[in-house]
């Protein structure tokens, strides 16, 4: 067998010496079989794009607060109401102290979300904040004399509780004014609760469940506090008695919109603008460019003649619109997704972002609002591919506000470590400002396409 192996090795060696592939061999072989070595790229613009519909989507679903920031106040016409679910029993020190004092005052303590306020990118001139804030406190109380009451509360699923907040009817309510005063270095603030609530709690027999809502829809600011999964969780208790405090076992924010701007997106919410662009504004232009439709029917499907490598929609931008507000004064990233078919349904798929490094280094990213320039460019490659390759009736894209942008001329588009230090490109905390896209959606847009062709005549 050794001899056979040697023989074969010798044969391979001999063959390799006699024949060898030359550098152009593969290219020449491809050519003789009608295949190119590259795909031909064509770039062209389709102007005067106008959406046939623009829908503003507001997501007012209650959202559970765990490690997230816990908001109170208002920004850009959106108010954030706090909900807390608290429970305790008679044996607790709180109850004994409450019943032993006629002048007991209950309160909620909230810890400032210093991670944001101490952030070097938080605008220093925003502090100190002072405001006499009109606050409405409302509550629901459930008493029980059964030992298993608290256990039964633990079995209430978060999702059920969140659903109940949509139709939350309080047992009592009172307005109050809270003097908000916050400057750098402060750690917490206290919201005194109405005496009616305190009195109501004295009627407890064995155990109590207190659901508390605090809202300040006319506040001048949106205040951020630590959520539950932190060392700085909010708590309910008696003033001047730190012996027994009760953090809520769950908490939520519910958003209330008082904003009639139909094309405004609010940062940090889940707002979205859904733009529908009819296919007849796009497909005929591609067909005209190639003198044929990019698909050719074949078998049970089609053969691709051309396909979209990159699609970029450029729209007008007016950062000075009257409705616009910004908390941090930083550029804000605009993210975009497209509706695509998936498993017999339609899903929203966020678009990837290809970097035009030369332009970014010179003029910054072009998918930002609140920065230099008067246009906004969004890459919608996936959506265009879907439109072209499935011959859909319309292109539907969804636009949302993303994170504040710290380095608009950094072409990494991601936080990165350099020389041992983390280089933050995004701020990491949402700016809850508002941006009016009216000019963007009402002005003609321009669509730029990078197409690849796999046809002989374009090759």
């Amino acid at each position, binding site marked *: 067998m050794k001899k056979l192996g040697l023989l074969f090795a010798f044969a391979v060696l001999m063959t390799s010496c006699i*024949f060898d592939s030359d550098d152009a061999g593969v290219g020449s072989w491809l050519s003789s*079989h009608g295949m190119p070595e590259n795909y031909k790229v064509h770039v062209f613009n389709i102007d005067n794009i106008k959406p046939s519909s623009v829908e503003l989507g507001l997501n007012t679903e209650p959202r559970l607060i765990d490690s997230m920031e816990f908001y109170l106040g208002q920004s850009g016409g959106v108010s954030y109401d706090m909900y807390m679910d608290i429970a305790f029993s008679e044996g607790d020190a709180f109850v004994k102290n409450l019943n032993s004092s006629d002048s007991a005052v209950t309160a909620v303590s909230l810890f400032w979300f210093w991670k944001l306020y101490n952030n070097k990118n938080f605008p220093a001139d925003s502090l100190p904040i002072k405001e006499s804030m009109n606050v409405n406190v409302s509550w629901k109380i459930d008493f029980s004399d059964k030992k298993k009451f608290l256990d039964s509360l633990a079995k209430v699923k978060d999702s059920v509780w969140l659903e109940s907040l949509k139709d939350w009817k309080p047992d009592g309510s009172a307005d109050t004014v809270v003097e908000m005063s916050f400057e750098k270095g402060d750690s917490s603030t206290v919201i005194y609760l109405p005496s009616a609530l305190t009195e109501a709690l004295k009627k407890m027999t064995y155990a109590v469940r207190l659901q508390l809502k605090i809202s300040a829809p006319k506040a001048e600011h949106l205040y951020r506090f630590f959520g539950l999964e932190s060392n700085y969780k909010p708590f309910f208790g008696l003033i001047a008695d730190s012996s027994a405090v009760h953090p809520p076992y769950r908490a939520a924010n519910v958003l209330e919109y008082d904003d009639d701007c139909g094309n405004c997106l609010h940062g940090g919410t889940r707002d979205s603008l859904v733009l529908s662009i009819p296919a007849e504004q796009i497909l005929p232009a591609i067909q005209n460019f190639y003198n044929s439709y990019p698909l050719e029917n074949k078998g049970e499907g089609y053969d691709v003649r051309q396909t979209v490598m990159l699609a970029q929609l450029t729209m007008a931008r007016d950062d000075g619109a009257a409705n616009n507000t910004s908390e941090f004064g930083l550029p804000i990233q605009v993210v975009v997704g497209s509706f695509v078919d998936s498993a017999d349904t339609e899903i929203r798929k966020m678009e990837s972002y290809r970097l035009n490094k030369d332009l970014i280094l010179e003029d910054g990213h072009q998918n930002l609002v609140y920065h230099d320039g008067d246009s906004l460019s969004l890459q919608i490659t996936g959506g265009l591919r879907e439109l072209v390759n499935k011959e859909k009736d319309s292109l539907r894209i969804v636009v949302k506000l993303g994170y504040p942008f710290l380095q608009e001329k950094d072409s990494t588009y991601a936080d990165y470590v350099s020389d041992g230090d983390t280089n933050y490109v995004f701020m990491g905390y949402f700016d809850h400002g508002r941006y009016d896209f009216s000019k963007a959606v009402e002005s003609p847009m321009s669509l730029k396409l990078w197409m*690849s062709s796999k046809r002989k005549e374009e090759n």
Partner: protein
Amino acid sequence: MKKLAAFLGVFASLSFGSMIGIDALGEEQVLGGTASAAGRGYAGNAKIGDSEGLSVVNPARLAFDKNVVFNLNFALEMDAASKNGHHLLSNGMSIPSFNISFPMGEFGALGVSLWQHFSTSMSEKSSGDNAAKIEYKGSVYELVPTYALRIPYLRSFSLGASAHVVLGSNSRSLTLGPDNSEVSDEDHWGTRSTKVSDFVDGTWEINHHPAYYAAALQYRGRQVSYFFSYTTGYTLKNSLDYDFRFSETDTLAPSSYAREISVPAMFATGVSYRLFKRHNVMLDLQWRAWDEDIENIGGSWAMPEITETQSDFMASVGYQLDGVPLFYEDYWKRINYRAGAWYKNWYVKDVFEIGGSIGAGLPLGRKGATIDIALQGGKRFSDSKTEWEESFFAFRIGLTGIGTWGQSRR
């Protein structure tokens, strides 16, 4: 069946290196590619011995086998393609067939073969920053159950029949970088370093039928043996999914298509003549008249839609000096020595092949186990615009085990 498909999937990566007909069916592995037949120039389907084993062209021969034969074949092939001063060297390894047969005395003989009938294999990358990459992989496998029986009262004659159940898969991937020559410099960023793959993969089966069939008549004489066989025509169905890939996870929705390839009936005959004691000469012929062109797997860019066909014909001559069967004889005398040559018209129009080979059957131990080896070389000539000429060199090894299961001691 899934296990078999997985098994075939492993061996599908072991395929031949010829690039001729790669968009059609690929390279045909004639006669199951057995190393013993290859050593004598693919002649000798009529040759009768105690343990010749299964022939996919002549199922009747099996009736004369006296031993259980287990046979596994390996092939290594190097192809040097050239055209207009350009060269392309490729090589591949394959397992062209695996055969097992059981003689059952008066009840005839049964056998089964797993045959890689057609195969495609290529993986090449061009030079440069935006290098193109072309990959073909594919095998048309056939599972061939065979039955043969010596005719009562005419025991010099035998009849044999086999069914060929087709399965297998194939794929082609062409990966390209951008050509921005018609794009302004400021727009190059849009596709810079962005590769796309025109990808297609599919499966093989026979259209509307479970198998195609072969039948043969064999005569064994004292000096001369011959056979005639007829293999039915059939339509191969290649169900394909075309896909345009931007990355592994980002693709266009696949488009399905099925190409149908009408493979014509084949006639084959052969004669084996014993000159002197242990000296044999053999001549084999096979012929298949293609009357329809083959739709290609590709069909993009400027690729031809079809591969034109021609009558597929093969003539082979061979010689074998049978080794002495006595284990105590000198080892060199126990070896089977083989030589042969062939001419073959490919099914691809304007392509023909001339080749020669030498081989040997090396006995292992006393019980008849053998290692067959064959060295082959030759050239494939092409007047086609598409196909390149190829020089090839192949080395084949066949492992043959002999048993006497179920045979009465004599």
